[in-house]
Structure formats: C-alpha cells, structure tokens
C-alpha cells in the first residue's frame, strides 16, 4: 500500500534544499504521495530510503502468473475489499483437479472434455483456466507420465500437486517450458520445495494446517513465518493456502487475509490465495456453493473436483459478474440491430442498451429463427425495469430513438413492440408517436419466441 506524504517525508533528507524544485521536503513528499513527482528529483535521498519507497510502491497483494503455451492466468494485485470501492482486477483462476491414478487415456479424455468446454455469455467466450494434476500415486514416474499426458491434452497452465519433493521434481520435469504453480510447501518439506520452485522459476503454494478452534490468527502466524522463510530462499511468487475448508472458515480466513494485505500492508501474507471447495463439500452442489463464495470473496485460484457443465457455466458467469467493473456499466451501442435478415414487414422490438438485456433479447430472437428489427434505445446502460424506474427508458426516449435511427424508412408497418414490464408506457408512447401502434410484448425475453410466432404485420 502506498505511503502517506508524512511517511515519505520521514525518509527524505529533511534539509529543504529546494533542489528538487519544491520549496520544502514536506511539499515534495506530498507530491510523491500523490504520484505527481519522481523520487529521482531528490539528489540526496539515501539508498535505504529508495529501497523502502520502492517496496512501499509494490502492490499489497503480489501478482502471480501461471502459464501454459496457450493461456496465461494472472491473479492477485487486488486493491479493495469490496468491488464497489473500485473494482476487482484479476479474475480467480478456475482449475479442474485430476489425479495421476487414472488410466492415462481416461485422464486425457477428462482433460480434453474440461478444457474443451466453452460457453458464450453476452458475447464473451468463457472457459476454464487449466488443470491441477495431483500425484495421488505418490510415485514420481507415475506423476511425470500423468503430467505429460495432461500436456498432450491441453496447452493451458497447470497446478502440480505433490507432497514429496522428489515426486514434485518429476512433475516439474514433465511441465518443462511452462510456468506451473507448485502445490505445496508445508512445514515438513518447505526447504526442498522452495529449491524446486526457485530452480523452475515457478510460483509456490504454501500450506499450513489450521489450528482447531482458533479464530485464524495462530495459523496465519505460521503461514506468515513460512512465506518469510521461503522468501529468504529466493522465491518471490507465492500463493497461500491457510488450510481452512468449511464455508465459515474460508469466509472468515480469506477476509482476514485480504484485510491484512490491504489495511495493514502485511507483506508476509500479501499473496493470492488458493482454495479447494470440493474438500469442504459433501457433493457437487455443496462444492458449487463454496466455490461461488471463493470467487466472490477473495480466492485467487479455485480448484474444482467436478467438471459438470451446468456448474461450470454458473461459476464462470458468477465470476464475470463479480469482476465486472462497477464504474463501467457494460453497454451496447444504441441503434438498430438486424436479426435473421429482417424484411420491411418483420416485427420491430425496442429494448435498452444494457448489454445483458440486449443479449437476452437478441439471443432469443436469433434463436427463434424469425427475422426481426431490434431497436436499442440509449438507457444509459440500465436494464428495462431499472431504466424505467430511473426515467431513462420512458416514452420520450423511446420515441426519440424511433425518430432518430431512421427505422421508419426500413419497415413497411408502424408497429412497435415494447417490453411487457413497461406496458404502462403504451398510452404516452402513442401520443409521442402519432400513427404508430404500440404493442405490449412479453415481460421476459425467454417468452419472445412464442410471442413472435403469433405476430403478423
């Protein structure tokens, strides 16, 4: 976390020599804090102060990257506890766990199925980030073959899971030329794991067992001690596993970790977090609920034990939603959208320019196979009901978009279908648009197909 002006001032020579161009060292410190000046402007600043200031400028949660030949995942570097305070930046990486005890052909097929999964959500292609391979066999050769098989099936990044350093080493060998996450250093093996991570230039996950009945403080102390020791061995990129698995434990501990990093600038725990929701769950839906918590509240890597399309779709969508920048409503350009090559006698529908609203309606019309004109009014990126309540989707605005887009010249009828939720606008719209017939469509996009089937010019 950035230092305040006063904190910076204490690191400066405090001689008020003015050579930096500012009248006093304090004034210069204030400019530095506001990032309106460069430290290099001070000719007398000590090396020690330089180092301290550089360290303070580093992000409170380290950015950690894992990479395969075809995909890169960056997590960490978050700056807020709540998305409304600014935004969450680096989406939690979603990984699927497989074990090296599976026959290799089954393993490959499972990886291909999970990594081949893709789904369109409001025009974006959503997919999973990679594979976590666990050395459940405990045998280096078996693990190495499994990692090789996974790499033949996908070019996305890997998380290598092994307790014994020798087994991990075999896995790392098979993951050559990629940047996997090594999971995990524990109090028993950390020195060897740190050496492996340093050699492979790969990030290292660090796990401590939680202390039973503690509020988290005790075990976080152990975790902090380990990261400091590992850092001392030359490993910079780490990922935390505080060992908690149940819903209340993860919510509390992950919140505490985020707070420690952001509010206390506590470097020993300023790393992204890895979670295993399946280990705290009794079945698939349980895992999904816990995974959804980890996506919203502070997970960096979320390793899932099931690949079930319905669940993956829901989790990927939730992740998109939570990581949407609240300062930038996702909008589409207002105007006329042509769907399924509409003709002059095709129906004309109006909706708002909130992208989720637009895609719901456009996908529905598209899927119905029937041609249609979709008029997207400028409702400042709000959904139909919200925009209507806020006065951004009223008769005047709708009429304006009818008149300004030139849709009249493209159609041979004067019929406009409005969303059922704003049926109350019918009378006013007929006044605003003389000669037009205003028709009330369904309230939800999902019912448009049935509606359009019955429509005629």
């Amino acid at each position, binding site marked *: 976390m950035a230092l305040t002006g006063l904190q910076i001032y204490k690191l400066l020579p405090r001689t008020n020599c003015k050579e930096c161009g500012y009248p006093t060292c304090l004034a210069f410190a204030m400019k530095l804090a506001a990032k309106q000046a460069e430290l290099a402007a001070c000719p007398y600043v000590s090396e020690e102060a330089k180092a301290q200031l550089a360290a303070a400028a580093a992000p409170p949660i380290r950015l950690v990257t894992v990479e395969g030949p075809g995909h890169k995942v960056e997590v960490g570097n978050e700056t807020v506890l709540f998305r409304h305070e600014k935004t969450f930046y680096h989406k939690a990486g979603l990984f699927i766990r497989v074990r090296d005890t599976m026959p290799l052909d089954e393993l490959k097929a499972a990886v291909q199925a999970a990594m081949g999964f893709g789904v369109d959500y409001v025009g974006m292609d959503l997919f999973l980030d990679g594979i976590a391979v666990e050395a459940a066999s405990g045998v280096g050769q078996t693990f190495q073959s499994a990692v090789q098989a996974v790499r033949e099936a996908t070019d996305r990044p890997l998380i290598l899971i092994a307790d014994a350093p020798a087994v991990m080493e075999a896995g790392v060998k098979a993951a050559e030329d990629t940047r996997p996450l090594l999971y995990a250093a524990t109090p028993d093996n950390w020195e060897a794991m740190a050496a492996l991570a340093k050699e492979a230039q790969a990030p290292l996950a660090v796990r401590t067992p939680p202390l039973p009945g503690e*509020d988290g403080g005790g075990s976080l102390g152990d975790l902090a001690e380990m990261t400091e020791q590992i850092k001392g061995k030359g490993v910079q990129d780490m990922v935390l596993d505080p060992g908690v698995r149940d819903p*209340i434990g993860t919510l509390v501990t992950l919140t*505490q970790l985020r707070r420690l990093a952001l509010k206390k600038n*506590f470097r020993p725990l300023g790393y992204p977090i890895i979670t295993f929701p399946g280990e705290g769950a009794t079945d698939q839906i349980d895992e999904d609920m816990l995974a959804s918590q980890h996506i919203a509240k502070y997970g960096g890597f979320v390793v899932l034990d099931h690949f079930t399309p319905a669940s993956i779709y829901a989790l990927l969508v939730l992740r998109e939603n939570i990581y949407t920048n609240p300062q930038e409503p996702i909008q589409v350009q207002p105007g006329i959208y042509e769907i399924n090559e509409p003709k002059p006698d095709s129906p004309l529908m109006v909706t708002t320019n909130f992208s989720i609203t637009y895609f719901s309606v456009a996908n529905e019309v598209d899927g119905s196979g029937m041609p249609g004109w979709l008029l997207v009014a400028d409702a400042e990126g709000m959904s139909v009901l919200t925009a209507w309540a806020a006065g951004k989707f009223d008769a005047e605005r709708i009429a304006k978009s009818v008149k300004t887009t030139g849709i009249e010249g493209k159609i041979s009828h004067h019929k406009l279908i409005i969303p059922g939720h704003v049926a109350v606008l019918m009378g006013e719209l007929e006044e605003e648009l003389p000669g037009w017939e205003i028709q009330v469509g369904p309230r939800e996009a999902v019912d448009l197909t049935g509606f359009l089937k019955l429509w005629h010019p």
Partner: protein
Amino acid sequence: MAVPVEIPVEKWMGKVREVTLGAVPDEGGTRSHTVTVGGETMLPFLHFEGEIPNPPRIAIEIANRRPDDWSPLLMEAWGDVMDDPATWAKAAEEAGADLILLQLILTKDGNEPTTASDASAATRAVLEATGLPILVFGPGQVDADNELLVAVAEEAVGERVVLGICEEKNYRTIVAAALAHAHLVNSRTPMDVNLAKQLVILISDMGLPLERVLMDPTTAGLGYGIEYGYSVMERLRIAALQGDTMTQQPMLVTPGYEAWRQKEAKVGEGVPEAWGDWRERAVLWETMTATALVESGADILVMRHPEAVKRVKAFIEELMGK
C-alpha cells in the same frame, strides 16, 4: 516461531434493527411462533468481530392460484398443491420454509381480475393452514396492490403480516394499512442505496415504527446483473454498521423470482449444449443467486424450489457455525 499477526477487526458503531414477523395469540395474532430477523453487528458471518443473533431466514413463495408463467420444473416440484394456496402453504412449511410469502396474481383463471375478497380469502386460508408468519405481496401494479393489500391488511388484522410491495408510488396507502391493522411493510426500491434509504425515511415519517419495516433493495439473477444488487446490499449493510440509522433495516431479497425468470432456469429446450443438464442448472441458478445474496447481507430470502431451499438452508447453518 510464528510471525505475530494482528488481525484487523472493524469496530462498527451501528447495528441492524431487529424486526419481528408474525404475532402469537397473546400478541393479537394466531401464529404458532414469531420470527425475528436482523440484529447483526458485523458484516455477514464474520463472527470474529460481532454478533448475528438471528440467522437469515427463507420464505417460500406460494401464490393464490397456480401461476401461468412458472417453469415446468417448479410445477413438477410442487405438483397439485399449487391449485390451492392452503395446501401449498402446508407443503412449503414441510419443505423447510421459515416464512410463507403469498404472492397475489393479477388475474384469476379466465382473465378476470383478482378481487379484494379473493385476496382476503386466500390470506385467510393460508393463515389457517400454517402457523408460520406470513408475507403477502400484491401483483406489482400500483392500483391492484392498493386495492388487494388493503383488504389483506383488514382480513389479517393483528397478525404482523409483511405487506408488499410497498414502493415509492404507493407507500402511503400500504403504510396506512399497516398502521391501521398492526402489520409490517416491505420497502422496495430499484437497486440504489439512496433510494432505499429515502423510502425508509418517507415510511418512517408516516409514523410506522422502523421495527416494522423490511428493506428490499431489489436484486437480479445470476448472469443478469446480480453484481448490481450484490454491491448495493454490501453498501447498505456497511452504511448500517457505520451508524446510518435509515439503512439499518433487515434486507429482504427475491432470488427465487429473479433466478426462475431467466432462461437458464426456466427452460430446457433450445439452449446451448454447454449449459449442461437443465435440472442441475435450474436448481443451481436459484441456489447460487441466493448464496451470493446471503453473503452480501440478506436477512430474508424469498425462494421457490424445494431443493434450492434445502441447499441454501444447510449452507446458512454452516455459515452460522452450527
């Protein structure tokens, strides 16, 4: 040697107001017990820095008649009980409801408008069928809401029923009915912190004690803007804990309605293959919408599918540390 770690603990000044739904015979009602929500002194489930004396509660939504537009999966889950609100209320209670929400539908079968006496009769039938506290929501059109909810308020006098939807356009009528007949109101505003606060002020100015007001900031389903509702709820709850008294009402949200109107839950045909199995997806859509909202501060979740109710209830119990 463990590194000393000082966990940052927020010292909140404020507390969410406790609101009690329902009245037992001694209090002028006929409920077998009351349900209290609110009272939190910390952000959701962060037990290390405050209290959550009352768990979030689940209201199962039923209707005065079989709804026309509910998903076939919901029709299948409830079956014939949907034809009779009293039977439906009993089934909802058995499915684990803490509260029953009776949704009044605008028209009867055959497109005749639902009348005040229909609404009263349905309310009476539900009150007789279940001992749980109830909420009654109008169809969401101001004129109809006013007419039906005033009748409901009279019929259920003394029961401390939550009347909804009480919004900017009709709050005067609904609040007056709540004042006259000892009920509560659900103050609904469209996804905005200031509007939520403002309507609570207006309701309070009419003389309704804040111990009888729930706050419904409106939310959205997973994939359809849930992040807006989620953040508005987080902001409202933070404001409440910081001591802003007009944001300290317990929050009611409707994940059942929001999830089940979306295509992902509602229909099984004509959707991308990548969406996976319909049943799994549909129940999950409601479940995940609800869990996201309970972790952002919901005190009452209005839900629809019995399986989703079961799931979310179990999750809440775990979050409560039970």
